[in-house]
């Protein structure tokens, strides 16, 4: 499980890590010992927990040993210290999984790789939650902005200015999801009596990408892994308290290795 490699990063943030699996203790013990899993893996052999949580996947077509068993959706909950669910990650398709590293960067952790772009009046550092991804894995592209003081970029929904937007080039290898923006702030520009939603200072945009099975699997005929690039264009407009600069674009790219399997 990819979670094993990330468990320590969560613990460093004061967040405990545990898995629930509908298998007997003996099976889980064998797996955990063999794979050096250093976090608690709970045995839900009678499926009581997944039933109570309402996580049984009734549309799942079981084969082999799984026939007749209740199988859960792959879901992950981020729960605060009081036991309240703060985030929920869920993939409807059985073959898809969000990487744990993706959940980690959504909590503000740094990504890996990427490039630094010095634009007019801002610095952008791009990175990715994962350097290696497998078919079906959902990972996260990260854009960390730092605007010069007294400058702002525009949030979606703004009228009359170009909002910050990441357009990704179509590629059958990747299914792209919606951009996640931080909360915008309202900015009042007195001379025009204008109130607009903006981003200022340091902020992070993220965008999830899933490696598609139809796009990736044919490529593994002769290789165990191959490099792939997610490319796109950042569209934006920066203004200061005094000056408004013209709308602009910036090409961006993220390179990842697509592997048949990721441990």
């Amino acid at each position, binding site marked *: *499980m990819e979670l094993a490699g990330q468990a320590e990063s*969560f613990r460093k*943030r*004061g*967040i*405990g890590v*545990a*898995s*629930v*699996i*509908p*298998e007997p*203790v003996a099976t*889980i*013990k064998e*797996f955990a*010992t063999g794979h050096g899993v250093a976090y*608690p*893996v*709970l*045995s839900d052999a009678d499926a*009581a927990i997944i039933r*109570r*949580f*309402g*996580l*049984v*996947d009734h549309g*799942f077509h079981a084969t082999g040993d799984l026939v007749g068993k209740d199988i*859960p*959706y*792959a*879901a992950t*909950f*981020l*729960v605060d*210290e009081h*036991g309240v*669910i*703060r985030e*929920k990650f869920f993939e*409807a398709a*059985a073959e898809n999984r969000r990487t*744990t590293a993706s*959940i980690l960067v*959504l909590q503000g952790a740094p990504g890996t790789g990427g490039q630094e772009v010095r634009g007019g009046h801002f610095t952008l550092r791009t990175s990715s939650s994962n350097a290696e991804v497998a078919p079906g894995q959902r990972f996260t592209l990260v854009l960390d902005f730092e605007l010069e003081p007294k400058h*702002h970029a525009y949030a979606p929904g703004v009228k009359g200015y170009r909002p910050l937007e990441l357009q990704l080039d179509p590629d059958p290898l990747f299914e792209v999801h919606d951009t996640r923006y*931080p*909360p915008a*702030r*309202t*900015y009042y*520009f*007195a*001379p025009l009596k204008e109130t607009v939603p903006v981003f200022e200072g340091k902020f992070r945009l993220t965008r999830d990408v899933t490696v598609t099975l139809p796009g990736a699997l044919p490529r593994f005929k002769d290789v165990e892994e191959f490099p792939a690039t997610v490319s796109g264009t950042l569209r934006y407009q920066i*203004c200061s*308290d*005094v*000056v408004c600069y013209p*709308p602009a674009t910036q090409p961006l790219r993220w390179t990842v290795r697509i592997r048949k399997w990721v441990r």
Partner: protein
Amino acid sequence: MKNRALLLAVALVQCKGSAAPLASPAASASDSGPGPSVGAPLPPFEAPDQDGKTRTFETLRGPNGLLLNFNRSVVW
């Protein structure tokens, strides 16, 4: 593009803008799908871990909470 606004903004000098939090919801994870929702309490649970030790939310959580993951089997 509102060119007039752009030109005006360029022409005007030393105009003070003020920023305040917007009342729009922050971007958050998808809350669709089965299982308990964001904002709800985690349902109580109790189960043995790989060492046979009985575990609950209280014994699993860190000072800032818990990442609880559900998988179909040990291998996937």
